[in-house]
């Protein structure tokens, strides 16, 4: 059974660069990003997430909104198990499929087919499973003969199709998406939409970070607004979106209601 549970999760990144002083200054004046602080060893660190608590159950489709650097991607990586939090506890039950920065972790010189296999293997799929889903991915991605060409010849959108195809072709419990809509064309978005809808229809958990309101309205039934690494609001889509918009109109991201 799919489940996600976060209790008082905090993520601190220590800044190791020599000129951490100027880094500190720079980020302090940026007005966005995580909160900067110093620990007992006088090291500067960015508090990318702090005090984040929520629980997701089957059927929950959570949207993540917030300014650039608010911690959306970091939160997704926490859910993917990449970052084990510096504070608090994370518990994720079920098979997780992350679709983040798709240009990373692909072999640009390998063909599309080879990358399907590679990606599926990294996601923990068995060899028999990979063979079965390759056809499905090829069909979904509609890349045709391109699948025999090296990935170097692909556009971002084409890479997206392939990565999205692999992650959604395999049966999983939790799907994590990061801003993937921005690179797909309209036809792909509609297709991906249907696929994501089918996924959530099987009472799985979906978490998606996005800036696009229509995406949120199409896919999510819960919304989490992150502001500088903290939960500014969490609740039904309409309610949170309303508050988020009001805060943006008021020109302040710093004083959530």
């Amino acid at each position: 059974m799919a489940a996600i549970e976060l209790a008082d999760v905090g993520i601190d990144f220590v800044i190791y660069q020599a000129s951490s002083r100027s880094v500190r200054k720079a980020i302090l004046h940026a007005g966005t990003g995580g909160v900067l602080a110093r620990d007992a060893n006088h090291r500067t660190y960015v508090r990318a997430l702090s005090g984040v608590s929520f629980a997701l159950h089957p059927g929950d489709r959570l949207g993540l909104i917030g300014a650039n650097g608010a911690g959306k991607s970091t939160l997704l990586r926490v859910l993917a198990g990449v970052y084990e939090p510096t504070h608090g506890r994370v518990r994720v039950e079920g098979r997780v499929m992350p679709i983040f920065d798709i240009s990373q972790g692909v072999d640009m010189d390998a063909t599309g087919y080879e990358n399907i296999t590679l990606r599926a293997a990294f996601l923990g799929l068995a060899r028999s499973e990979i063979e079965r889903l390759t056809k499905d991915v090829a069909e979904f991605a509609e890349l045709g003969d391109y699948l025999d060409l090296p990935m170097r010849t692909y556009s971002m959108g084409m890479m997206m199709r392939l990565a999205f195809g692999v992650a959604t072709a395999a049966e999983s419990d939790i799907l994590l998406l990061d801003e993937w809509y921005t690179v797909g064309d309209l036809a792909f978005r509609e297709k991906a939409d249907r696929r994501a809808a089918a996924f959530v229809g099987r009472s799985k958990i979906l978490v998606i970070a996005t800036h696009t309101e229509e995406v949120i309205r199409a896919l999510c039934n819960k919304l989490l607004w992150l502001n500088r690494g903290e939960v500014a609001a969490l609740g039904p889509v309409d309610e949170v979106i309303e508050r988020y918009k009001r805060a943006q109109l008021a020109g302040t991201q710093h004083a959530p209601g």
Partner: protein
Amino acid sequence: MTQTSPSDRQAVFDTAMGSQAAHALRDFAQGFGNVGLWSMIAWRDVKQRYRRSTLGPFWVTISMAFMITGLSIVYGALFNMELRTYLPFVCLGLITWEFVSRSILEGSAAFVQYEGLMKQIRLPLSIHIAGAVGRNAIVLAHNAILYLVVIAIFGINPGWQVLWVLPGFALVLLNLLWAAALLAVICTRFRDVPLILQSVFQMLFFLTPVFWSPTLMPTRTLLVEGNPFYHMLELLRAPLLGHTPEPTSWVFLLITLVAGWSATFWLFSKFRRRVPYWL
């Protein structure tokens, strides 16, 4: 859409469950244990490096052949040694040195190399170590052809002694794995270390009896007896040349195996979960 049973790999990931030592142990078990994945990574890396070249990894073998020939001619004359005994010695010295040093150097760079992947998909850290060492084992297998050519040319028959190479290889491999894992954590946190390692290994190439016989330098025992790289080379080289490796080499490497894995395990218990933050 393909339907497969999701329950066959029900994953539970809980940061509050189990001690850090248990997490470290699981990392090694799941990383080294997933032979299918790390061997795939290893093959992929070899293919990627030589893609679009006709001879692929055999280019390394060819350049190795040139190096062996060159060194044997020059130093064979300088050391006044017969080519028949010296060339096979140099051949195995270079092949095994390449394997040992590249495994450690590339293993220690593994996390940085796979940064993009590690920030997306949760995988055991040790899988990247196994991939880097495995990649060099594949190159070693290509270079092994040179050994076969050399013993054919010089008519060398190592006899049954050659079987010692099997336990020897296992012991060397287990030592390389801890060294690569330990250094990978350190190299990810301190980015000067990989650069230092490069120079250190360049120096070690000359300090270790790779192309000079330890019998030529009876007074410098520390470079020989106290040098783990000498013992690693010996466990592989001696049996292939028809000698039984010295018992001291086995003892030495068994000690480094226990001490090294203890240190590596401690380091992983303490810093394993910090590694993605350092990338």
